[in-house]
Structures are given as C-alpha cells and as structure tokens.
C-alpha cells in the first residue's frame, strides 16, 4: 500500500494515490447530499431501497434522513446514535456497543472530512482507476470490525464520491448512491450486479 505524499501533479493517467484521493474529498461543512440506499440482506428476499438526505457536519457527526418508504431521522454525534421515527420517542444507543458500527462510521466521516491519516489508522487503503473514475477500497484493520465489515468500496469522479458499497461479514451488502447517482432510476428489484455496474460508471450517462 502506498502512503507517499509526493505525488506527481498529473495523476490522471497513473494509478491514483489513496491519500491524495482522500484529501481531495474534504467537504466544507455542513455538506448535504440526497441519497438512494439499497440494502441486500440474507434476512430479506428483496432489497430494501431508501431515499433521503445525508448531512455531514464535521468529524464524527453525521445525519441521515429517510424520506421514503418511511420517515426517520438518525443523528450520530460523539459516539452515540439517536434514531427518531415519526412520533415515537427517540432511541439512543452507543456506537461503542457496536464497535463494528463505530469503526464504519469513523471511516465514513473521515472520508468525508478528507482525513487520510485517521482513515489509514482504521483501514488499509488501496486505490485504482483514473481521476475521472476512481475506486477506493477500505479494508478494516481491526479484526472485530473485519468480522462485521469485510470491505468498503467507494467509487467517485474527480473530488466527489458517488457510491459507497459496504460488504458486511454475513454477506449482506449496502449500496449508498449519492450526489449525481442519488436520483438514478432503479428497477424495483435491483441486483448487486446492476448496482456494481452503476457505481463503476459503466452505465452512467
């Protein structure tokens, strides 16, 4: 894995450096984007598709609003997550109760914060593609996290990530489409293969 910071200015044709890639992802806070999330689970015989908005407001702080098919607001701050659903009382739980979740969210917000150093503490990074269509792969270093999450793949173009694919240890897969991909029309039962192609930009525009 390369951690070299001395990257040539023209990285378009060479293999992209993950640290440089990550550093370029830094968003001004608060950063908002619509999203479409598709979850494939062994418990479900068809994927769960959610639409809503993500809000990144600084390291360790993330908001996720679900608009359809139901309404929900999740707020993650300082190591705890609060889930508010309709009129029900909010439920709060600690991320350290689920270290895998904590590691995942740390990685996720470090990515949005462009914080390559902290990302590399938790994950092994590798990159491929070109600056127009790059791919970043995150493999958890912590074995407990690795048991729950085998890898996170991020696809993007220039300084914008567009697709996050989370491969969970039990075979479940979560695909998060953001930015320009968020509004993609999907079939009612998309397959992981279709989404894979979508993320890699094979079928885009």
């Amino acid at each position, binding site marked *: 894995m390369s951690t070299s910071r001395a990257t040539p200015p023209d990285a378009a044709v060479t293999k992209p450096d993950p640290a440089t890639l990550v550093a370029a992802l830094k968003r001004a806070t608060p950063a908002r984007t619509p999203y479409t999330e598709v979850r494939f689970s*062994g418990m*479900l*015989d068809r*994927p769960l598709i959610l639409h809503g908005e993500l809000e990144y407001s600084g390291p360790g702080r993330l908001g996720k609003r679900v608009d359809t098919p139901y309404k929900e607001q999740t707020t993650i701050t*300082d*190591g705890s997550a609060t*889930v508010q659903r309709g009129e029900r009382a909010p439920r709060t739980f600690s991320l*350290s109760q*689920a270290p895998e979740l904590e590691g995942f969210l740390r990685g996720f917000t470090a990515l949005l914060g462009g914080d390559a150093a902290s990302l590399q503490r938790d994950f092994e990074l590798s990159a491929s593609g070109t600056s127009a269509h790059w791919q970043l792969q995150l493999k958890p270093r912590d074995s407990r996290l690795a048991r729950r999450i085998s890898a996170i793949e991020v696809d993007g173009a220039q300084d914008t990530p567009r697709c996050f694919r989370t491969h*969970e240890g039990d075979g479940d897969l979560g695909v998060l489409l953001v930015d320009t991909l968020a509004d993609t029309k999907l079939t009612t039962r998309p397959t992981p293969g279709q989404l894979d192609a979508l993320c890699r930009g094979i079928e885009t525009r």
Partner: protein
Amino acid sequence: MRLIRSRRSVFVLLSGWLLALAALAVFAIHGLHISTDLRSFMPPPQTPDQKLLMDQIGEGPGSRLLLLAIDGAPETRLADLSRGLADAVRKDAAHFSLVVNGAFDPAAFDDALLPYRYLLSPTLDTHTLDASYLGDQLQQRVEDLGSPAATLLKPLLARDPTLETLVLAEHWSPPKPPSLRDGVWFSAEGAALLLTETRGAGFDPAAQGAAIDALQAAFHALPDVGTAHLEVSGPGYFTVMINAKTRGEADRIGAVSTLGFIVLLLLAYRSVPSLLLAALPVLSGGLAGIAALALLFGSAHGITLAFGFTLLGVAQEYPIRLLSHRRAGEDALTSVRALWPLLATAIASAAIAYLAFFASGVGGLQQLAVFTIAGLLVAGLSTRYLLPRVLPSRFRDVAEIPGIATAMRLVDRVPRPRWLPWLLLLVSLLALWRAPGSMWQNDLAALTPVPQDMLIRDAKLRGELGAPDVRYLLVLKAADADAMLALSESVATQLDALVAQGALDGVELPSRYLPSAATQRARQAKLPDRATLATALADASRDLPFRTDLFDPFLADVERARSLPVLSAEAFAQSPLGTRLASMLVQREDGALGLATLSGVHDAQAIEAFADTTQGHVRLLDLKAASESLVIAYRERILRALGLALVLLCATVVVALRSLRRAWHVIAPMSLATLLVLVVERGCGISLSLFHLVALTLAAGLGLHYALFFERPVADAAEARRTLHATLVCVISALLVFGMQALSSLPVLRAIGLTVALGVGFHFCLSILMARERRR
C-alpha cells in the same frame, strides 16, 4: 539473704504474670470474633416491625446499594469506564450481587430463560401476537434494518422479531432511570452513574470496606483510567467512612491522653518501674474480660467492647490507690492489706451491681456485664495479690510531698453547710423539669453523623439514579412467594396512583421482575399455537421483504413458551436476571415477605393510609422508626438494669460498712453528683443516648471510690493526705483522659468524654463536701 531471694521471686513472679498475660492475649485474639453487625448489639425484637428490621437491618435491598459516579474524563471515555467497571463487578460475585449502569446486557438472557420473555413481559396484556400487531412490529424491523442500529439488532431479529427482550430490559430499569448517553447512565453534571448491590450487610463496616476496596481496585485496573475517578456513596460507604473517622480520632485522642497520663503518674510517683507495673492490673483485667467473652459467647459486638473498656476505666484506680497509700517503712503487701477491705468493697459492689446487666436478657448487655465483672475482679485481685509482690521496695511516701499538706489544709477549710446538698437537689430537680429539648436521643445515627456535604451528594445521586430510599420499605405479606407476587400485582395500580399524586417518586414492586403464576398463565394462554402464529406471520409479512423462513426460531420459541411450566420465584431468583427479585424476597416459616423499595417518599402518611386499607397485607415499614423503637427498648432495659444495680450497690455498701449512716455518706454524694451531670447536660439541651448512660455509670463507679475513701476513718493525718493524693491523681487522670474526649468533634466521643469529665468533677467535690463531713 531475704532480699536476694525476694529479688529472684519477684523476677519469677513478674515473668509468670507477663507470660500468663501473653497467653491470655493469644487466646483472646483467636477466641473472640468481633462483630460489627448491629444485630448482635441490639435487644431481641418484640414487634413485627422490629423483627423485620432485625432481619433486614443493613440487609434490606436499599441499604446494600452503593451508588457510583465516574467523573473526570470525556463522556465517551466515561461510558467505556462504566461498561468496564460493570463487567468487572459482574465477575466479582463474592462481593456484589448486582450491578446496573443502564446498558442492556443481552447475555443475561440465557437460552433457557429466553422463551419466558412472553410470560415476563407485559406486552401480551395489551396485545396479541396476531397479524396486525406482528405487521406493525415487522414494519419497524424493516426500518431497523435500514438504520445504523441494524448491526445491533440483526442477531436478535430472527428469534425475537417483537424485540421482547429489549421491552423487558426497559421494563426492569429503575422507575426513573437517569438519562442514557452513549448507552449508559449519566448524571446531569456529566458523570457516568452505576448502581451496585453488595452481598455484605449495609451497616457492616468490614464487609462494606472490602466491597468498596474491591470497587476501587477494579476501577483502577481498567485500561486508560487516566484522570477519571470513581466516587462511591450510599449507606455502606458512610458506615466505612464514619468507622474510620471515629477510630482515627479515638486513636489520636487516646495517644495524647495516654502521654498526659504517663507524665502525670511520673510526676506523682517519680518512678518508671512503678508506672509500668501499675499498668499491669488494668491490662490483665481487659484481657481477662475478652477471654471471658470468648469463652462464654465466642463473639461480641464492637460497641459492647468499647462500652466495656470505658467501664473498665474504674480499674485504673486500684493500682493508683496502692501506690499512693504505701507508707514509709512498710512493704507494699502490708499497705495493700490495710487498703484491701475498702478496695474489696468497691470492687465487690461494682461487680455485684453489674450482675443487674447480666439479668437484663439483652445479649449486648450480658456481654458487657461479663466483660466488666471479669475485668474488674481480675484487675482488683492482681492489684491485691500480684502487684505488691513485684513493686520496687524503694519508693517515696506521698504523705511527705509538701504540696499535699497544703492541699489537705485547703480541703479541710472548705465550708460544708449541711443545707447545701439539699438545695442542690432541689435546684437540680427543678432544672431537670424545665430542661430544653427532648430527654432522650433515640437515633443512634445522630451520634455518628454523616457530614452534611456527603448527605447532599448522596441525595443528589440517589435522585438521579432513582435509587430507593433507605428509610422506607413497603412490606407485602402473603402465604407464599406466588401469593406475594399476586398481591404485588394487585396493589400496583393503587401505588401508581400514589406516585401520580406525588406522595412518592417511584415504587419498585417484586412483580415488576416476576409476574405471579396466574398472570404468567394468562399470558401463556394468549400465545397462539404454531399454525395460527405462522399464518399470522405470513399475513403480516406479505408486503414486507423478509425471507419466508426467517422467523422459524421465533415460531419455535413461542411454541416452547406455550408449554413451559410457569417460572417460580425460587427458580427465577437463582438466575442471573433474578438477583433483584432475590433481594426483595424474604422466605419465612409463616409465609413469604416481599420488600418493595420506595424512592423519594414525600408523604409517608398517604402511603400509610393506603397500607391500612389492605387488611395488614401491605405495611409501610419505617426503618428509622423501627430502629428507634429498638433503641428505646434497649434503653429501657439499661435503665431497669441500672435501677437494680443501684439497689444491689446500696445493699453491698451497707453490708460492707455495717452501718446505714456510713453507707448514706457514700451513696448520697454519688447519687447527687450523677444527678448534677444530668442537670448540666440537659440544661445545655443535650439529649441523652445510650453512650451517656454508660458514661454516667463509669463516673458513678469512680465517684463510689472517692466517697468510700474520703468516708473511711483514718488513724492519722498522714493517711488522710495519702487518700487525698490518691484521689487527686485519680481525678486529674480521669479529667485528662475524658476531658480530651469531650473536646472531640465526634458526638459519640464527646458524649462519653463530657459525661465522665463532668461526673468526675462533681463526684470529687461532693465527696469532699458530703463524705468527709461527719469526720470532723
């Protein structure tokens, strides 16, 4: 020749004595178990409340709770420490039976208990496992799978799609739980809060000290403790803290006054060997007392021993009398023979008087009597038969000390109007009649007060944790454990109404943890059979994305729950989840008692009024009132014993002196002086406690000596001067030791010190005034 042989025999005798003391000490230390449990000190309980108090004192669910707060680090760090400490405490089953910090511990539900969740949870009282309820639940689970909580809930989902285990965990959290942050309880100030229940009794300082040490050790063994610190509060902590403080101050005062005492004796007798040897009779008496307790009882309460050593203070007078009454040209044995009849009278009358304590029937008082009688007899006999034989033959006749003659003249010149004692008596009775405040202090805890700031901190923590009140318990009485649980269920709504009215903040009923068999059966009857449930489930998940056979483990669990035998209180109390119930359940020969804890009691009368409507099935137990009634009962027995002791004492003195008139001169000043102490203390608004009574008894014992010796007809002026010298040494040493205690900041030491110091002063003055009167 005689001198040489006597030297050798002195050496042999002294070595033998010291060896015997060493052997006695070894026996006493190994033979006597010193108990710190208040129960071994208290009188036998009479009322049902007292009986329950004796069972529950320090063992009730409330008093065994320690409140913990972790502070001094960032919140997420504190939450980790809270979880780490809870894990460590959970493993320390020797000290703790329970620990809660707000975090849900799914591991607590073992496989065997898991199907019982539908019988334990109130869900089925209001819902049925039909298609509409399951549909609503499953829709929520879909949403859960889409949320970050998915990883947490996925392991539970297939077996428990209604998340009944979480419902139960919530149902079992305290009535008013603190706010959950980062998954654990936090105070408003941002400290992580935990609650532990110790195995040891709340008022047992040894057990609580060990538990608190274990807590601190476990806390500091956690990784990255850093600047964080653990604060402990609760009855057990107070017990430990006060015990240490009392012991520390008593030791300090003891050290200073012992030093003063040594200087005083050196000044009085100018002889180091005499000083060292004079300590032997009291030492012998103390060890003999402990040995007697070890032989007869095997154990004694710490307070009994403290009282005993206080009362044994009289014995220090015996060697002092012997040292002061030695006359020039006479060996110590001859001196002691002249002194013995009077000394024997004093010892015998005191020992006979303490027999009254033995007859009291109170364990603590009987032990006190055995200790004191054995101690006084051994101290007296060793002063008579051993001490004179080992004292150095060279000494100074105190009658020749110049100052003594002057003092004697002063004492002789004091006017002694015969009306004065009567006037004093009259004024005393009037003053006692008009004295402010209540006569008796019934709250033993008032003598060992917990510092105000600690009480405030405790109340704050207690409020935040919703931890139960230590003072009140609701006692549910029924024929057996299940009937008690049914009773608990039947009163729940009325108690909730009382909570709504504001009479109290919360109640924790045993049925919250385990429903009665009837309720469990009713819930069981509502569970659908496998086919019905499968149909309902298929119906409910028709439009949902769940895999068809996903919930098979759920179907199996419900099927098992349908045929389970209901969970009994005994079985549940054995399980890790049942610890809370176990501490609320008392099995007795005549049935079962349930102890419901109350928190934030504002209106005890309203709760009492409700309890009155239950035909005695539910009672509000006021632990404070019950313990005060025990103290009153104890005091009544002490007073009765003291009355009897006074009669025995008078009879012994009359018989020994063979004269009513002479006996009067001894007993009158002693009685009046005791009365004067009472007048002064009551005049200052001091309420009298057991400790005051014991101190009064010691002072009276000392006063008896002063009066006896002043009253004694003496052959010459030199002997009168020796008596005065001996008495002065005794009075000054007692004032020194007890005067120091009177200055203590601790009420219990102050009570003893002030009473004895005042007593010694009054006894001395009145003995001069009244006992010597007739002799001129």
